[in-house]
C-alpha cells in the first residue's frame, strides 16, 4: 500500500512540472492553432542554460529560471515573428513540417554546443529527502513542484487579471472578433508564443536538479506534452494543468505496476481512451 501512496506522491510532484510544460503548449495552440513540435527542444535549451549557469557561475537552477525563462521567451518570440507568423494560414502538414525543421535545428544546435553525453546539475541538496509518516519526499522534487505551482498560478492570474492577458484570451476565443475590436493580433501572437516557450523553458530548468538530460531528450517531452494537452483538452489551461498531474501520477503508477521502462505506455493508453471517448478532453464541455 505504502508503495502505491509513494508512487502517487512522486507522480504528483513530477506532474506539477509536466503541467507547466503543457500549459505552454496549450497556450500556443489555443491562440495560434499551431502545434509546437519544437516544444521539448525549447525545454532542453532551458535545461542546458541552467546547467551552464550552474557550472560556470554556480547559479542555483531555482534562481536561474529567471534567466532561462526570459531567454526562451525571446527564442519563442523570434520563432513566432520570423517563421510561425508566415504559416498561420498554411495547411496542417506545412505547419508541422516547419515546426519539425525548427525542432531539428534546436536539437542539433544543442548537440553542437554540448555534445551527446547526458548532463546533470549536481546541487548540494540534490539527494536530500525527508519523511512524512511512511512516505519519503525528495527535497528537489518538492521544491520543483512548489515553484511550478507558483509559476502556473502566476500565469493564470496574468491571463485573468491583466489587460494583456485578456487580449490573449480574446484572441484565443475568437480571432476575428478580437481583430474587429482592435486587438493588436501580431503583438498578442508574439507574446503568447513567447510566454508558452518561457513556461516550457522554466519547466526544463526546474527539472535539472533531479533529471539527467541530453539533446535527444527533447522529443520525448514534446510527445509527453502532446499527451497531456489532449488528455486535458486542447487549448484549455485548466485541462493542461490537471492533465499534467494525471500523466505524472499514471506514469509513476505504471512504473510500479508494470516495469519502469514501460511507464509511458499507461499515459499513451490513457490518451487513446480520451481520444475515443472524450476527444474534447477531460475539462472541456464542447469541441
Amino acid at each position: 500500500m505504502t508503495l502505491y501512496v509513494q508512487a502517487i506522491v512522486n507522480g504528483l510532484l513530477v506532474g506539477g512540472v509536466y503541467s507547466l510544460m503543457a500549459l505552454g503548449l496549450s497556450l500556443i495552440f489555443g491562440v495560434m492553432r499551431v502545434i509546437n513540435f519544437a516544444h521539448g527542444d525549447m525545454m532542453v535549451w532551458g535545461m542546458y542554460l541552467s546547467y551552464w549557469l550552474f557550472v560556470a557561475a554556480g547559479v542555483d537552477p531555482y534562481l536561474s529560471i529567471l534567466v532561462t525563462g526570459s531567454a526562451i521567451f525571446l527564442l519563442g518570440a523570434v520563432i513566432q515573428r520570423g517563421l510561425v507568423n508566415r504559416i498561420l494560414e498554411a495547411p496542417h502538414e506545412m505547419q508541422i513540417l516547419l515546426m519539425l525543421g525548427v525542432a531539428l535545428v534546436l536539437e542539433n544546435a544543442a548537440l553542437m554546443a554540448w555534445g551527446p553525453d547526458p548532463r546533470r546539475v549536481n546541487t548540494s541538496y540534490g539527494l536530500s529527502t525527508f519523511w512524512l509518516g511512511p512516505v519519503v519526499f525528495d527535497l528537489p522534487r518538492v521544491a520543483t513542484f512548489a515553484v511550478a505551482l507558483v509559476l502556473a498560478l502566476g500565469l493564470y492570474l496574468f491571463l485573468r487579471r491583466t489587460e494583456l492577458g485578456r487580449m490573449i484570451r480574446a484572441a484565443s476565443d475568437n480571432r476575428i472578433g478580437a481583430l474587429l475590436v482592435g486587438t493588436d493580433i501580431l503583438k498578442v501572437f508574439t507574446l503568447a508564443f513567447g510566454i508558452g516557450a518561457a513556461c516550457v523553458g522554466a519547466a526544463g530548468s526546474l527539472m535539472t536538479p533531479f533529471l539527467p538530460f541530453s539533446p535527444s531528450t527533447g522529443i520525448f517531452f514534446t510527445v509527453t506534452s502532446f499527451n497531456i494537452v489532449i488528455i486535458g483538452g486542447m487549448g484549455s489551461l485548466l485541462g493542461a494543468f490537471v492533465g499534467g498531474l494525471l500523466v505524472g501520477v499514471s506514469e509513476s503508477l505504471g512504473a510500479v505496476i508494470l516495469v519502469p521502462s514501460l511507464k509511458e505506455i499507461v499515459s499513451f493508453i490513457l490518451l487513446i481512451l480520451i481520444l475515443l471517448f472524450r476527444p474534447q478532453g477531460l475539462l472541456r464541455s464542447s469541441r
Partner: protein
Amino acid sequence: MLRLGLGAVSGAALLILPFWIPSTWQNLLITTFYYAYLGQAWNILGGYAGQLSLGHAAFFAIGAYTSAVLASQYGLSPWLGMFVGAGLAALLSLGIGYLGFRFGLRGFYFILLTLAAAEICRLIALHLPILGGYTGLFINFTPNPWQFQFQGKIPYYFIALGFLCLACGIVWLVQRSKLGSYLVAIREDEDASEALGVNTFRYKMIAYALSAALTAPGGTFYAYFQFYLQPNTVLHINHSVDIMIRPIVGGMGTILGPVLGSFLLELLGEFSRTYFAAGVAGLNVVIYGVLLIIVVLFLPRGVYPTLVHWLRQRPGDSR
C-alpha cells in the same frame, strides 16, 4: 511525346547507372528509392485521403520484424514473410482506423492517435524477448537470394527500384480509379462528400489498410539491407517523420511528389553531410533543418506542384 522520350531516357539511365557509380552513390540511390517507396505508401493515406499519419514506423516495423522472425524461427523466406507482414500491418491499421475514424477524429487528433499507437508499439517491442529488447535483433548474413540476402549493392538497387516502380504503379491505378476520386473528395471536404453519398469511413479505412500494407515490405527490405533492427531506431517517432517528410516536401497527392521529395531531401542531406559533418557533430542536421524551413516558406505547395505550375505558365510549352 517529349514526356515519353524523357521517361525512356531516364529509365534506361537508371538501369545502367548502378554499374558505373561508386558504392557510396549506390547506397545513396538505394536510400532514395527506398524512402520514395515508403513516401509513396504514406501518400495514399496522407496525400490522397488527406489523413496525416505520424505513426507509419509501426507498419514498417511490423514488416521488418515479421519477416525477420519468420525467417529465423521457421525458415520462411522473407519474400513470403513480407506478405505476412503486409497482412499484419493492414490489420493493425484497420484497428487504429476503426477506432479513430469511427469516433470522427480528424486533423491533429488523428495525427496524435497514430503517434500514440506507434509509441505503444515501440514500448511493447522493447519488451518482447524474441525481438532482442534493447540490444536489438541481428540477422545473420547468408548470401542466399531466396533469403533476401545478396552479395554487393547492385541487387538491392534493383529491388528498391522495382519496389518503387510497383508502388508508383499502384498509386497510379488508385488515382485513376473511383477510389482515388473518393479519397480526393474526402481530402477536399469530408462533410460535403459524405453528404453526396460517399461512405467516407469505408474509403478512409481502405486507404489506411492499403497504405499500411505497402509500408510493411519496405521494412522487410530495410531488415535485409541493414541486418540489424532496434525498436528505438525503426519505431522511433523520428522514423515516422522520415517517412512522412518526403511526400510533403515533394508534393502530397501526386505520383511524382514523393519521388521528387526523396531525391531532393537525400541530396540535401548528402550535401550537408559532405560539407558540414566533418567539423562539429550536429551541424549537418542543423543545415538540413534550415533547408526544410526554407522549403516550407518558399514552396508551400510542395516542389512538384510548384514546378508544374511554373512550367504551365511558360509560353510555347510542349504539352
